[in-house]
């Protein structure tokens, strides 16, 4: 299972952020075109910043979206619902 983070930030700022919290998975920058973010969850405006809406997508080995979840607050999103679907996919293989 590969975890990828995608945000509207530039790659330089993503490195600062990733190093700051020692992030163990890659971050992809969709800046400046924001095409991927627009085609998935969409954008929102926070103060003067354009940011990606907080969505989680689970894509299987065939490229099919098998689940999507929306994080509506800045709280840590529980990983269990995502892991549950991921385990179901793994068991069926």
């Amino acid at each position, binding site marked *: 299972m590969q975890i990828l983070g995608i945000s509207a930030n*530039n790659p*330089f*700022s993503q490195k600062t952020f990733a190093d700051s919290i020692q992030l163990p998975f890659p971050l992809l920058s969709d800046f400046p075109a924001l095409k991927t973010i627009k085609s998935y969850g969409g954008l929102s405006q926070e103060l003067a910043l354009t940011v990606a809406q907080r969505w989680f997508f689970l894509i299987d080995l065939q490229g099919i979206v098998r689940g999507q979840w929306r994080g509506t607050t800045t709280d840590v999103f529980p990983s269990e619902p995502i892991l549950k679907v991921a385990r179901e996919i793994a068991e069926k293989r």
Partner: protein
Amino acid sequence: MAAFGIVALMTALNAPAAERPGLAELLKALNVSGYPSVMQPPEFSGFTADGQRVSLAGLSRRVVLLNFWATWCLECRSEMPAFERLHREFSVQGLAIVGINAREGTSTIREYAKELALTFPLILDPSGKINSTYGVIGLPTTFLIGRNGRPIALAIGPREWSGKPARALIQALLAESAALKGTR
């Protein structure tokens, strides 16, 4: 032969920090991370408390030490005397030390600079735009940018900036002057 030598030197100086001969060891000694070659530090422009405009573009061909700080940050305060010493010693050789404050007022910054006798520019960032563009989420955070405009090092948290490893890294970057002239 001579042409090959120049090409080899330019290739080495434009290589990612971690690939430059000796640079990886200097970064490791200071406990800072390097950058891949494709990255560019974002342009910024701001004003000091005295109204002096400072921009990254205006620091062309200089080694830039960019420190993000705030007056309430105790670890930032401990770094400031070292930055001032580096500024006084190396600015003539091409080192530009720039402090970027986060969301504090002009008088607060002016008093802080007076108290610590700081003479290098301290930029105001009232909206936090520069902090955000650089991805800064904790203070202090410090960036080192080479004469060719490429990012060299990132330090999350405080470092001994007047210690041997920091001085060796800065002196190595300052020594790159001739070959990199005109690349930014």
